[in-house]
């Protein structure tokens, strides 16, 4: 009798199969930058940008806290790592190569728009490269943090990730001041540069590459990956872990492996979001970016969205971004308002806005049940 182990299909290959959605993503991103951006005022444009970054954070955390039912509390830690890594890459590379740290992007980057510039430049290439490296560094840390804690049951992940965010914050605080002259930068070795990211004063001088194109490209790619993850065989494996971990193992799901994968993918996108954040005009990247409050923002979005609904997370990201704008006068009470909002949700919608379902699932469901109660009067009456 043979004991051949059937191969488990590759997770990553199933995420990048089929390029059409990615083409659409680029199209959407170009429209955001070239059509939408010039036609709205700077303030709503900045809100659109914040919404986009929060969408990436919320949707990526949904993969962990929603799909697999683990509870990560350190998403901001991964975001900060990605932000610092990509910021250091663009800033110090620019200083070395061009002698100055400013952005050298084309039409598709930045928030100011440029007349007569090429669409993409070498600077944009550098930015894209730095975003991906930031994501990879965050994902690598995600693996180091996730592997040991996801093997253990229960709330270890929550505790470990909470600690992780704080460690990132404290480590960044210990770094040295940013090197501001081209001369100093040229003299420093490659290994010294990452230690000069500003300490508790923050990392200023990062070039402003981030614009609606890059942010919405990131949003679309995150959404594509999240949907593919949810609707694939893996998606069923993720949701089975959340439903009943022991039964999932009994079906042959390597639960540790899938939990780690979800965690690493989520950390990657958090790192990308961090890179987008750190290259934004008017953002001062500081160690507080890794702090618990920021992680909590994202958790709120995911819980509000329904712990597993992608469209719910997007809706919640929009609401949570806009809420402080509507409640300007009471901004200091944000945490209290959050707490109240959470309590109200727990009471009135214990499964969040959408549960694990998507907006359209719910719509179809409501429509179907309306028809059913129309034909079967007894069933309708009983409800």
């Amino acid at each position, binding site marked *: 009798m043979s004991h051949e182990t059937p191969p488990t299909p590759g997770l990553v290959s199933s995420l990048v199969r089929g390029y059409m959605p990615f083409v659409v993503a680029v199209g959407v991103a170009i429209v955001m930058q070239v059509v939408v951006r010039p036609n709205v005022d700077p303030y709503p444009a900045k809100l659109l940008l914040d919404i986009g970054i929060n969408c990436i954070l919320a949707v990526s955390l949904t993969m962990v806290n929603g799909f697999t039912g683990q509870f990560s509390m350190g998403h901001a830690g991964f975001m900060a790592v990605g932000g610092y890594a990509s910021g250091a890459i663009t800033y110090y590379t620019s200083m070395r190569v061009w002698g100055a740290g400013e952005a050298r992007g084309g039409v598709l980057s930045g928030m100011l728009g440029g007349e007569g510039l090429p669409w993409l430049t070498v600077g944009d290439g550098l930015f894209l490269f730095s975003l991906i490296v930031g994501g990879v560094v965050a994902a690598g840390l995600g693996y180091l943090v996730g592997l040991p804690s996801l093997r253990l049951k229960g709330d270890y992940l929550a505790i470990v990730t909470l600690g992780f965010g704080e460690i990132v914050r404290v480590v960044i605080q210990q770094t040295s001041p940013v090197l501001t002259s081209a001369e100093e930068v040229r003299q420093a070795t490659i290994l010294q540069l990452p230690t000069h990211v500003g300490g508790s004063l923050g990392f200023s001088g990062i070039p402003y590459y981030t614009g609606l194109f890059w942010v919405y490209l990131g949003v679309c790619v995150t959404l594509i990956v999240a949907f593919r993850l949810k609707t694939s065989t893996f998606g069923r494996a993720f949701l*089975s872990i959340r*439903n*009943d971990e022991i039964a999932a*193992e*009994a079906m*042959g*799901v*390597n639960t540790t492996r899938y939990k780690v994968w979800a965690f690493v993918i989520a950390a990657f996108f958090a790192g990308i979001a961090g890179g987008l954040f750190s290259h934004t005009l008017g953002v001062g990247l500081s160690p507080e970016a890794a702090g618990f409050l920021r992680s909590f923002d994202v958790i709120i979005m995911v819980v509000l969205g329904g712990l597993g609904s992608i469209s719910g997370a997007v809706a919640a990201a929009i609401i949570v971004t806009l809420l402080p704008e509507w409640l300007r006068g009471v901004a200091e009470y944000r945490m209290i308002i959050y707490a109240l909002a959470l309590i109200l949700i727990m009471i009135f919608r214990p499964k969040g806005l959408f549960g694990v379902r998507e907006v359209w699932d719910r719509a179809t469901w409501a429509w179907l049940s309306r028809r059913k109660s129309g034909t079967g009067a007894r069933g309708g009456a009983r409800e």
Partner: protein
Amino acid sequence: MLEIRDLVVSYGAVRALHGVSLRVERGEIVTLIGCNGAGKSTTLRAVSGMVRPASGTIEFEGRSIARMKPHEIVRLGMAHCPEGRGIFANMTVEENLRLGAFTRDDAEGIAADHERALTLFPRLRERLRQSAGTLSGGEQQMLAIGRAILTRPRLLLLDEPSLGLAPQVVRTIFQIIREINAAGTTILLVEQNAHMALKVAHRAYVLEVGKIEMEGPAADLAASDEVRKAYLGVA
């Protein structure tokens, strides 16, 4: 096919099994009966890798599996229907069945086994799109067994399939257990319902507080005075 020797399992300071040995030959239905808390579920959990034995050996088709993870053991051809069924309550019946085939990529074989499970349990066919959490207890047990069939096991571990079910449903389920066995699947059946279990099984073991107290052909045990007194309620 399955050979357990001197199996010792502890939960922290509590020792649940004190050296259990048993064997299951290919094609058999073997039942393990015993009172509540005797260690029946623990034995199955150790075999399928859900708890790690403190000592002892477990061999499945000649290979030692005592240190393997559950998801690895499924791939070797063993399925475990846990006590309490462990269905995915938030998923539909269909999604539950598809997860049964998680480790397989032979589309035709999966389709055939899917059809087989629905033929064994016609009730599931009517409820494919229903959320599994809304099934009755008997239907959930059917789903758990059907889902296990989709892993295409050569050895099927069943933990108290009769638990909490009406006598009529229990009879149906035991009839189907017999059919599954007749179609070539070896079965290790854990039961408190000794009466039914001894009827379908070829051989039986009696487990008492972590130790095997008796073993033999099921018919012999069913006729023995000790078993009749202790487990069949005959004075």
